[in-house]
Structures are given as structure tokens and as C-alpha cells.
């Protein structure tokens, strides 16, 4: 990584992922029963639920298997039309962290990466570096990016390249300090 730049890019540890889609009219009910993330949010320790759309969540867990999560959905959502499917192998997840993370990520998407616009606990399904992604603020200076596994290598290369370039930039827009 470039000199003087505070950024770390690493694959996130293995986690089980379940995509949960719910019939639109029942989405509110489902969110309430399963304590799912509100719009643009990521909530819960384990499993964590990421909001991907008004009828779509991604459940992520380091401890439970996908099958367990799917069963739980079935149990809690009895009578509610939904489809919970294992997506553990469908995504690559990268963790990007460090004091300069917001400036590096601002190269990838037109999201408002200012802390006020994207506080921890936020989840933004978006277009990142040309590919569909969910960007999750896991901490003040810590993000996770979910992309299709086919783009995992690309995204990592892209972030590393961008970080090198960002290290040379005189101006930072999304971290508060002007250097």
C-alpha cells in the first residue's frame, strides 16, 4: 500500500449468507418478525441483516449455517410468502478499512461517503466500480463490500489500484481533514 495512506483491503472471513425475498405486501410484517434491517441499514450482530431493497435482505452469519438461517426464516415467516436461499457462495466480500477509506471508496460510487451521509450501520446497494454491490459501513473507518463472486478478483485489484492512486492525491473530499 502506498506510503502514508491509511487503508487496508482484505477479504472478509467466511460467512454464511442467505438471501431472503418476501412478497411485497408482507415485507413489513417479515421485517418486524425477523427484526430485519430498515431501509439503507445493516443491523444485528449475528446474523446481521443487510437491506438490499424493500422486499429483499441478505442475512450474514459467522456462526450459523445457511440451512439454519433458512429454517429460521421458514419458522418465523410461516404463512408469509417468501424465498430464502443459500447465497454463501454467491458473493465475494471485501473489507476495506483505515482512515482514508472514504476517499478510496468515493472513487467507486457516487454515494455520499461523508460520515454524515453514510454513518456506521448503513448499507447501500449501489453501483460500485461498474458492478452491482452492497456497501456496508461496519464502523467509522471500516466498510465491507459485497459483490458477485465472479467480480471478486476484479474488485480487489481495482481497490488496490485505486488506493495507490488515492495515496497521491492532494485533496481529500470525504475525510474531514484537508492535507
Amino acid at each position, binding site marked *: 500500500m502506498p506510503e502514508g495512506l491509511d487503508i487496508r483491503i482484505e477479504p472478509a472471513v467466511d460467512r454464511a449468507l442467505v438471501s431472503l425475498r418476501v412478497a411485497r405486501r408482507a415485507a413489513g410484517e417479515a421485517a418486524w418478525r425477523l427484526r430485519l434491517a430498515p*431501509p*439503507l441499514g445493516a443491523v444485528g450482530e449475528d446474523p446481521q441483516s443487510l437491506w*438490499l*431493497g*424493500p422486499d*429483499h435482505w441478505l442475512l450474514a452469519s459467522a456462526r450459523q449455517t445457511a440451512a439454519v438461517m433458512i429454517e429460521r426464516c421458514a419458522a418465523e415467516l410461516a404463512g408469509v410468502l417468501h424465498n430464502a436461499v443459500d447465497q454463501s457462495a454467491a458473493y465475494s466480500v471485501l473489507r476495506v478499512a483505515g482512515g482514508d477509506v472514504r476517499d478510496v471508496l468515493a472513487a467507486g*460510487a*457516487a*454515494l455520499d461517503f461523508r460520515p454524515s451521509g453514510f454513518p456506521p450501520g448503513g448499507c*447501500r*446497494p*449501489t*453501483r460500485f466500480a461498474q458492478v*452491482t454491490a452492497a456497501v456496508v459501513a461496519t464502523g467509522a473507518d471500516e466498510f465491507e463490500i459485497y459483490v458477485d463472486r465472479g467480480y471478486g478478483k476484479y474488485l480487489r485489484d481495482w481497490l488496490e489500484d485505486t488506493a495507490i492512486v488515492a495515496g497521491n492525491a492532494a485533496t481529500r473530499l470525504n475525510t474531514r481533514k484537508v492535507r
Partner: protein
Amino acid sequence: MLTIPCPFCGERDEAEFRYGGEALQEIPQAGASDAEWADYLFNRDNPKGLVHERWCHSYGCNQWFQVVRDTVTHRIHAVYRVGEARPVLDDVDGASADTGG
């Protein structure tokens, strides 16, 4: 470069959306004539002024919704969800002439 307020995600860059053409096209009933069918399939109001159109936040929440946009200024006057009533617009002063509807 448009900034489109997705009713679910808030303002996002145009590049995250897919354009779906004019909204308010009714699929003709069975038995429609070739002319009626062609009118539905191909003809468009294509107004110079306010248009109701469909967009999908395809890189985001993946939802379709309607936008009321001025095709001259590109100003977005309203957005509304599928199934929601068409909004009543009270601030169309800024809209271009030639509105037509």
C-alpha cells in the same frame, strides 16, 4: 447528468438506473386491432415538457417506480411507486411549455 430520487434509496446517480420508457401505457385488451396494438407497442407521446416515465433502480434496490420529469429542463417534479396514485403537481411553474399532459 440526472440525480434520481429513488423512492426507496433516496437520491442516486443516473448510472444506477435503467430507463423503462413512458409510463401509463395500458396493455390493450384481447381482441385489440393491429392498429391499437401497434399504437401500444410503438407510438409514444414523447412530450416536450412533463412526462411520466418508468425507471428501475437496477444497481440498487431493484425496484421500478415512476418519475415525472421535464424533458427540456430535466427537472424531476415527482416520483411515485408502482400502484401509487399519480401525484398532484402544484409546482409545475418551472415546467417547459408544450407540456401537453
